[in-house]
C-alpha cells in the first residue's frame, strides 16, 4: 500500500493491521516517532494524519487515509516549526522521549484553536504522558507558540 509521509511517497508491503507507528519506525526508519505504551495511553507516538493528531500505535496502517506528518516533517533542526522553537526556548525537555508526541499534539491543538485557553491546553495535552514531569514548561511553551503563530 501507499503512504505519504512527511511529503514523500512510500510503497510498503505490510500487514493491514500493522500499527502506523511500526511502519514508520521499522519499515521507513523514521525514528523520531516513539514507542511508549502501544495502547494509546501515553501519546509518545503522536503524528498527524491530514494535520490532525492521532496515536500511531493504535492506527492500523490500512486505516491511514491521508498524508502523515511526523515530528521530522514538522520541522528540522535548521528550520524548526514555531512549536519546536517554543519548546527549545522554554527548555521543555528532560529525557525528551515524550516530546515528539507532545509537540505534535500541541501543533494539532494550535491549528485547531489559535489562542487556546488554559483549560483548553490542559484538556488537549492531558493524553500525553511525561514521566519526567515537564508539564509546567509544556504549558508555557504552548502559549508562546500560540503567540508566535499569531504574529506570523
Amino acid at each position: 500500500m501507499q503512504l505519504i509521509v512527511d511529503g514523500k511517497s512510500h510503497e510498503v508491503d505490510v500487514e493491514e493491521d500493522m500499527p502506523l507507528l511500526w511502519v514508520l519506525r521499522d519499515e521507513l526508519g523514521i525514528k523520531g516517532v516513539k514507542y511508549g505504551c502501544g495502547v494509546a495511553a501515553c501519546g509518545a507516538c503522536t503524528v498527524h494524519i491530514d494535520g490532525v493528531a492521532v496515536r500511531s500505535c493504535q492506527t492500523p496502517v490500512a486505516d491511514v487515509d491521508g498524508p502523515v506528518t511526523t515530528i521530522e516533517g514538522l520541522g528540522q533542526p535548521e528550520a524548526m516549526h514555531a512549536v519546536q522553537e517554543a519548546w527549545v526556548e522554554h527548555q521543555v525537555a528532560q529525557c525528551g522521549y515524550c516530546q515528539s508526541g507532545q509537540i505534535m499534539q500541541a501543533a494539532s491543538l494550535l491549528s485547531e484553536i489559535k489562542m487556546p485557553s488554559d483549560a483548553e491546553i490542559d484538556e488537549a495535552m492531558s493524553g500525553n504522558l511525561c514521566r519526567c514531569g515537564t508539564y509546567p514548561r509544556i504549558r508555557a511553551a504552548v502559549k508562546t507558540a500560540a503567540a508566535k503563530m499569531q504574529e506570523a
Partner: protein
Amino acid sequence: MGKVGKIARRTFLFGAVAVAGGVAFGVYKVRTPYENPLKDGLADGASTFNPWVVIDGEKITLITPHGDKGQGVAHAQAALIAEELDVEFGQFEIDFGKPDKAYWNRALAGDGAPFMATDESFTAEATRSFMGGMIKLLGMQITGGSTAMPDSYDKLREAGAVARETLKLAASNVSGVPVAQLKTANGAVQLPDGSELAYTALAGAAAKVEPVTEITLRKPSEWRLIGKPMQRLDMVAKSTGTLNYGIDVDIDGMVHAAVMCNPRQGGKLEGYDASTAESMRGVQKVVEVSGGVAVVADNTWRAIQAVQAIDFDWGAAPYPAEQDGHWAAIEASFTEEQLDKEWRNEGDVTAAMSGGKAVEAAYRVPYVAHAPLEPLNATVLVEDDKVTVWTGHQIPRMLQDQVAKVTGHKSEQIELVNHFMGGSFGHRLEFKHVELAAEIANQMRGTPVKLTYSREEDFAHDFPRHIGMARGSGAVQDGKVTAMDLQVAMPSVVVSQMGRAGLNVPGPDMQIAAGAWNNPYGLENFRMRAYRVPELAPVSSWRSVGASAGGFFFDSLLDELIHEAGADPLQERIRLMQHDVSRKVLEAVGEMSNWGSSLGPNKGRGVAFVESFGVPTAEVIEVTNTEDGITIDKVWVAADVGTVIDPVNFENLVQGGVIFALGHAMNSEITYSDGMAEQANYWDAEGMRLKQCPEIMVRGLENGDKVRGIGEPPVPPAAPALANAIFAATGQRIRELPLYHHIDFA
C-alpha cells in the same frame, strides 16, 4: 552476635553499591591515578590531556561519562569543563566515552557512609575518605544517587583547566611568547598581538608536552557559565525528534527481538508451544533465554505479536503469590531477630511516653514501577573476539561484567556504546534486559540483535521500588512535640539489586532507614529502628530510593504529633530544627508560600521536610477539596544544593521530581496476584496528567558548603506534604500510599 555478624556490622553498605571487607590497599595505591583511557588508539596529531578532553586537528571532544537519563548531566559535565577550558557550546562535541576505571565516582562515599549528611565530624569525614579509596580501587563508574554533580564539580573544572594550561604551553612553544602573556577564549589561545591559535591547530604541539598540572581554578565571580541560565545542548535534538536513544539504534543487518519471561519474576519456564509464533510473518527464530522465550523477527511489532502468541507454562513465583502475603511478611518483621539496626536512640522515648502516647499509627508504602517512557532495550552484536552493546546504562563497567558472564568473553572485550536515555528513575541500573539481549545475540553470533521490551513486559519485569511499613508513636507536651519512636520494616533493596549482579552484601542497609533516621531535628527523645524483611518480590532503586518511603513515614508521623500538640506545622518544624542550612530551607518555603495567611474554604496547606542525598528540601502544598475530589493547586519548594550549576535545569528537575512524586503518591503502585504484577500498562499506574499539574515555585539555596545533586531530593517530601495538606483540608489523615485508595483526585 557471632563473628560473621560482627564482621557484617563493620562493613559498609551504601546506596546502590556495596563493598564488603577484604579490599586491602595502601595510601600509595589510592593516590595513584588511573591511566587516561583516551590514549588508547589516539590518532597522530591528536592530544588528550586527561580522561575528559581530547583535541585533534578537526575538533574538540569532551567526554561526559555520567549517563544522561534526562537530568541534563551531559550538558552540565560539558559546562564544567568548558568553564575552565574556555570553549563555547557549539565549538565541541560530547561523547559518553568508554567504560573505564578512570571514571570512578568520587561522590559515592559521601552519602554511602553511615553518617548523617550534616555530620562533619572527623570520624564521618575519615570514613568517607576511606570509602572513597575503596570505590576508586574498584573503579566504580556509576550514575546514580544524585552524585553526578558532586563527583564532577571539582574534577571536571580541573580537567578543563589542565587542558587549557597545556594548550597555552603548547602555544608558547609554537609562538615563542611566554605563557604568562597568553590568554584563552572561544576555543583559542590569544597572543598579545591580537592573533589567535585555535586549540585544534595546537593539538599536535600539545601532544608533545606533558600536561600542566599546576593550575588554579577560577573564582565563582569569574564564571561565565556556572550558575547562569544555560541552553542545554540536547534541546534542539529533543524538540525535533533527531536524538538517537538506545531504542532507535539501527545497525546494518540488525534483527528485532521481543521477549517474554515468566511474569512470576524469577520463576521457571516449565514449557512452551511456539508453533503458531514460528509460522507468523517475519519470524526468523524462536530462542530460549533464562526464564523465558524470545522471538527474533524482521520488525519489532512482528516480534512482539509472535512472542505473545506463544503458549507458556510458567512455574511458581519465589515470593508470596498474593499481595496480602507480602504485607503479612512485613508485619511479621518487627522483631528483635529482624532488627537491622537501631539508627538513632536519643533521650528516653519509653519514659517520655509513660504518660501516654499522643499518636500511635501504622504507615504503608507500596511497590511502584519505574516505567520510564523509553521501554527497556538493548542492541547486541556478539562476535568471537568482541561483543558490542548499544544501550543507555547507568553502570557501564558492571554492565561489561554482566554481559561477559553471558557470552563467555572477558569484560574488556565488551564494548558499550552508551546512549541518551529516555528516562530511568533507577530502571537503567538493572542488567536483566541487556543480559537477555546478549543471550539472544549469543545464539546468533555475527548478527546484531535489538531487543525491545513491550510496555507490558517492562511493567511485568520492572523490579519495582521496595514495599514498606512503619509503626510510629510519640508524645507531646505544652504545645510541643517531645518524643518520637519510629520503626520501619522493608526488604533490602540493596541486597536484592546487588544480588542480581552476583554480589553478596553484608551489613545493615541504610536504605531501609533513609529519610527516617537522618533528619537533622533535635527531638528531645527520638528512636529510629530499621527491620529487615526477608526478600520478597525482586526490588530495585527507585528515584530517591529509601527516602521515598522513609520520608513519608517520618514526616507524616511528625505532622500528626504537631497537630496533636496544637502547634503550627511549619513553626514547630523550625523550632525543632538543629541544622542551620536546613532551618533556612524551612524558613524560605514558609516565606515563599506565605505560610500562615488565610485560605479559602475547603482548602488546606501542608508542609514536609526531608533531607536526602545531602540536600535539605522543604515543600509546601496547597490543595482544595472540590466536589470532584482533591485538586493540587500550588507547590513551593526550597532546597539547598550548595551551588546551583544551572538555574533553569535546576527548576525543571525540581518541578519534575515533585510531579513524579505526586503522581505516584496519588495513584501508582504494583500489586501481585497469582505471583504476577496486576498493573500492565500506564492505564493501571498512571502518574500525574498535565491537567492535574499544580503551579510549582522553586528556590535553590546555596548555604550548604558542598555541591549536591538535585535529581532525587525533591521526591521524598512531596508525598507527605500532600498527605499533610489533605489532612488540613479535610481532617482525613491518610497513612498509606497511593492515596487514591482513600480519597478521590479531580
